[in-house]
């Protein structure tokens, strides 16, 4: 009887420890990617997070649904955090179509959506640097189709991962979510948890 009670107590204790645990998915503290923000300023990612929690989305601006949903969800997360008075979070959107998504294109993308960029940065860069970053992040983006205009300009359409990532203050990747269908309350709860670490 005593042994049973002891075993049950041990199981409950172990289970609650697992529930409290929020493992590190990947350590980005020794990585460095040189990118440009929407103002064409040089930015180093993930160091731009500067000791804040990071919410990072991956998009291309010619995307008609997944990426706008991802961006809209990030805006909703930003608004919810403001409501709760949580101000230690930096938002970053990274484009995987750097040939089209120049800094000025990203700036316009944010402007027409009337996004609050006070703690949100849009990043692009050289193709090879973006490729390197995507590989580290495990984000896949490949051109699946395109439209070419009379002036030879081309717009690409991508087959791509649907992703928002959560980083802690020490540049550790903690969790990945589906960007277009993320549950806002879930990521808010996760942010509150790692804020307390």
């Amino acid at each position, binding site marked *: 009887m005593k042994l049973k009670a002891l075993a049950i107590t041990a199981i409950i204790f172990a289970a609650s420890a697992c529930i409290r645990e929020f493992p590190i998915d990947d350590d980005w503290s020794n990585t460095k990617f040189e990118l440009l923000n929407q103002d064409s300023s040089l930015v180093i990612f993930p160091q731009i997070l500067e000791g804040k929690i990071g919410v990072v989305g991956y998009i291309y*601006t010619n995307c*008609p*649904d997944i990426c706008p*949903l991802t961006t809209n969800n990030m805006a909703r997360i930003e608004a919810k955090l403001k409501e709760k008075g949580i101000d230690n979070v930096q938002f970053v959107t990274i484009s995987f179509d750097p040939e089209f998504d120049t800094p000025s294109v990203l700036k316009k993308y944010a402007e*027409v959506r009337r996004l609050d960029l006070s703690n949100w940065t849009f990043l692009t860069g050289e193709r090879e640097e973006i490729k390197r970053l995507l590989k580290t992040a495990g984000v896949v983006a490949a051109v*699946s189709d395109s*439209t070419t*205009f009379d002036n030879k300009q081309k717009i690409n359409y991508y*087959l791509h991962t*649907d992703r928002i990532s959560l980083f802690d203050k020490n540049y550790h990747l903690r969790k990945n979510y589906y960007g277009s269908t993320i549950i806002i309350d879930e990521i808010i709860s996760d942010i509150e948890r790692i804020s307390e670490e």
Partner: protein
Amino acid sequence: MKKIFFFLTVLLVAAACSKSGNNIDVKRGISITDGRMLPAGKGMNSGAFLKIKNNGNEADTLLGAEFTDAYSVQIHKSFLLEDGRRGMEEIKKLPIPPGETVELKPMSYHIMLIRLKENAVSGEEKELTLVFGKAGKIKTRVSVD
């Protein structure tokens, strides 16, 4: 009394003819509602979403769309692969069965507005024309999200 009746009639007709962002545009049994599009800058792509209801007894087909502020317009369908990647492809026609509503929405069918000629800013309204095999051209208003 006659004056009041006349005045009320004019008001009623005016109300029936007035348009809003989500009014119902009807022609030959096809009604269009809930039109919206994504904000996008000049030179970028946008997507338009809406509901098409076929109130008639015959099937119809959405063949395309016209949007004066884009260089071209296509009907697209988004898809999800087993590995979680998402993409989209052009389709040449979208059947609208009799008595049914087909919804063009994110991650499904949508209208691709390719290379906008002007900014589409949140809060604005634009005109979109849908082209059907039987109902012909139907104009509708879409609000920019």
